[in-house]
């Protein structure tokens, strides 16, 4: 009897592994930054290139960094969601305009609306590398102490905003700065 049951058992185990594997998304690489200080940046603002924004400017508040580009199709998809979220005024959202041409980026924001407190232009992608960006759009949640607390890879959906971002932001805002 065991002769026949053993292969069946092995088969079922393999099927189990494969089934779990089906549900995993290889694009979702865990970010090594969660729980670590946000990488420093010092970038010009998209609309006022002479003004620069640094991570030190955000100290003491919870903020979001939304990485986007005009060439990125799924950024277009999430833009409405991000805009709606920004309008609630719950949390300042900064845009990191990743490897983009300033005039393309401005045209894009002009057409679709600008939800960002400030857009930071990372034309050569160096800040993107420092933040471990590999697939735009990506959204980071940074707490009052400047620690990265969460990262959304891929487009932000209404569901993610309601169930993940809003509760997290509220929790972080209640924390001591």
């Amino acid at each position, binding site marked *: 009897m065991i002769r026949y049951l053993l292969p069946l058992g092995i088969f079922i185990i393999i099927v189990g592994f494969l089934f779990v594997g089906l549900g995993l998304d*290889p*694009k979702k*690489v*865990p*970010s*090594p*930054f969660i729980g670590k200080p946000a*990488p420093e940046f010092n970038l010009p603002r998209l609309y006022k290139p002479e003004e620069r924004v640094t991570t030190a400017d955000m100290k003491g508040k919870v903020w979001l960094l939304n990485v986007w580009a005009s060439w990125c199709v799924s950024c277009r998809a999430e833009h409405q969601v991000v805009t709606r979220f920004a309008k609630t005024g719950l949390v300042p959202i900064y845009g990191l305009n990743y*490897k983009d041409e300033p005039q393309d980026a401005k045209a894009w924001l002009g057409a679709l609306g600008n939800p960002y407190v400030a857009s930071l232009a990372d034309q*050569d*992608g160096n800040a*993107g*590398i*420092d*933040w*471990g960006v*590999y*697939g735009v759009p990506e959204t980071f949640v940074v707490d009052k102490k400047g620690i990265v607390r969460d990262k959304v890879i891929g487009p932000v959906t209404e569901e993610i905003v309601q169930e993940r971002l809003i509760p997290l932001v509220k929790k972080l805002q209640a924390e001591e700065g």
Partner: protein
Amino acid sequence: MRVLLLICLLAATAAVTANIETYKFDDARKEADYQTLVHELRCLVCQNQNLADSNAELAQDLRRKTYEMVEKGLSKDEVVEYMVARYGDFVLYKPPLQRNTLALWGGPFVIFIIAVVVLIRIIRRRPSSSERLLSEEERQRAEQLLKQQTEEK
């Protein structure tokens, strides 16, 4: 005519290789380090390719970054550390041995041991080879036949 054809062929190969940038190194060891690194680091956009093979923008940027760091005199470990700090262990094609990779590193050995145990059991179950396969009579006959054959030669 043949020369013209050769030139055309050479031009074609130049066009094929032109999309991978070449970096100049002042030191052969640095170049070797760079080559090892771009072969061992994974491109996170096209995940089954390393930096050397990938043509994604991110891979180009990371190659440039690797080049800059190697040129600056950073060691291979320092470059790897830089990448892991940003992209996590996933950027390594050769994962480090740590708690969450134990199954990955140990798995093959465990499977090997199981295979050896199964193999030994299968071999044991077979009739042992020391069992007499020929009776005394048959053995003598076989010997005789063999002897005859060698004498005939």
